[in-house]
């Protein structure tokens, strides 16, 4: 029983981490129809920034996260202006290839700059709270969960109620109609992409004390983000939270109840879940920003 309680806690904590990791990917896909294959690399760059702050200036990742957000926001805006803007009206294959190229470039640049050594940032919010002999709460993950829930709520309010947020949703649902009512679709895309890359960088900063920071940490994160997004509904903020929680819980339970599965094999769980979700509910479990439609993405 107490093992179960611990697995529950671990699942929720893992879910919080996945939430912050998936939001930016999901919204870019939902709003712009771009599958950002370089998502994991943006996480990685954010993680390196936080590690540098931690290693060089002894700044806690939870403190440097807002700065990482701003730096990555600007970086995202640059990538959007130089690359994504040009391919937005092309077929999805073009954006897949371009973003794949970006991911390779980022990996190589970071490897040249920092070598392939594994790094970890230091945080004061580490260790565990011991509630009983068999139940502990991992502190870092707890605070990541708090940030994730806060960011999710903030994004929900922003998209649901602000003028810009509504324009973003409108452009996601019907690009032509958005143009007709006077939405500057290019501007909406630029803002969306920059904001999402900023968020993605924050995710990297927050996991930098937990997950080894290295140039090739990205691809598995991209795959997870893909699985959660496709499962939960493109661009759905609540879906990202829900899907991330489901996946976190499933992985934690698998680790507890299936012998010798290990955390690595648990990765398979996300894809089993994805396939099951696609068969049972191809439109996504939650209502997304955009319909899953072969012609629109």
């Amino acid at each position, binding site marked *: 029983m107490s093992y179960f309680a611990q697995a529950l806690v671990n699942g929720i904590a893992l879910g919080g981490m996945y939430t912050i990791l998936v939001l930016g990917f999901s919204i870019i896909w939902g709003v712009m129809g771009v599958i950002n294959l370089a998502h994991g690399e943006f996480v990685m760059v954010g993680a390196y920034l936080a590690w540098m702050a931690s290693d060089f200036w002894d700044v806690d990742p939870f403190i440097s996260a807002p700065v990482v957000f701003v730096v990555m926001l600007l970086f995202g805006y640059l990538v959007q202006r130089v690359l994504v803007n040009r391919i937005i009206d092309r077929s999805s294959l073009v954006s897949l290839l371009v973003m794949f190229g970006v991911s390779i470039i980022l990996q190589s640049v970071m490897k040249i700059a920092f070598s392939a050594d594994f790094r970890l940032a230091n945080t004061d919010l580490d260790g565990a709270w011991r509630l009983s002999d068999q139940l502990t709460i991992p502190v870092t993950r707890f605070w990541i969960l708090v940030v994730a829930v806060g960011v999710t709520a903030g994004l929900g309010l922003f998209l649901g109620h602000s*003028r810009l947020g*509504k*324009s973003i*949703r*409108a452009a996601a*649902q*019907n690009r*032509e*109609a*958005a*143009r*007709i*009512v*006077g*939405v*500057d679709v290019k501007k909406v895309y630029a803002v969306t992409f920059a904001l999402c890359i900023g968020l993605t960088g924050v995710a990297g900063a927050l996991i930098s004390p937990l997950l080894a920071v290295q140039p090739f940490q990205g691809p598995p994160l991209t795959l997870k983000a893909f699985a959660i997004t496709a499962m939960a509904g493109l661009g759905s903020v609540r879906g990202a939270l829900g899907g991330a929680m489901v996946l976190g819980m499933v992985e934690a339970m698998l680790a507890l109840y299936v012998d010798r599965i290990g955390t690595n094999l648990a990765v398979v769980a996300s894809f089993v879940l994805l396939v099951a979700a696609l068969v049972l509910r191809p439109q996504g479990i939650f*209502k997304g*920003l955009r319909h899953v439609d072969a012609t629109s993405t």
Partner: protein
Amino acid sequence: MTGCPESPAVTAANPGTPLLQVQDVRAGYFAGQDILTGVDLEVHRGEIVCVIGPNGAGKSTVFKAVYGLVPVRSGRVLCDGRDITNISPQDALRVAGITIVPQLRSVFEQMTVHENLEMGMVTERHKARVRERIDYVYDLFPRLAERSKQPAGTMSGGEQRMLEIGRSLMFEPRLVLMDEPSAGLAPKITRQIFAAIDRLNREIGLTVLMIEQNARQGLEASHRGYVIEMGRITHEGRAAELLGDHQVRRAFLGVR
């Protein structure tokens, strides 16, 4: 609705320059392949004008030329006497006060009726002003008020078209371009839509330029009409006259 409404343009109470003038416009997507080969038409304040013609004659291109979606190669488009040739779609809305109701479904399906109307005035910063306009549209279409919290995509095709028209009114347009308001709707619903356009015209003096595939109903709801064939205007006149014209009847109204 059988008789055509009397055109306000022909009364002495409405002199002055037409609201929209299209003067000898040649336009097309590619140089040397003009779809419009010299189109002249005008719309006066308070008028409903219908453009009919066969598929591929250039009906939609007339709209696109006015709205800056296709380049005008020669000729002029004037709004209130001001040259707006090759204006950008955003300026057509903001500067010239022209809104468009496109042929394909253009509601934001997953947003509520209320949010859809808000989007019709997305460039307005004053919330009170937006609310005022929404109440105004609800007054015109009580049906939309009833459904204000419903996602637009769950309404019937006719209701969605009403919403599109309502949304186009949010901006207080001087002219609304309607691309086949009857497209994809059952005949009964089509009649309701045309009745609504007619009512708006009489109640708030809405000026409408529309394209119709459904030539008879379109003309019956209009003051004046134009027939476009092969990229130029071949007939024009009061809608009642066009409905009675032998050639027009044979060609477009299915009458021998």
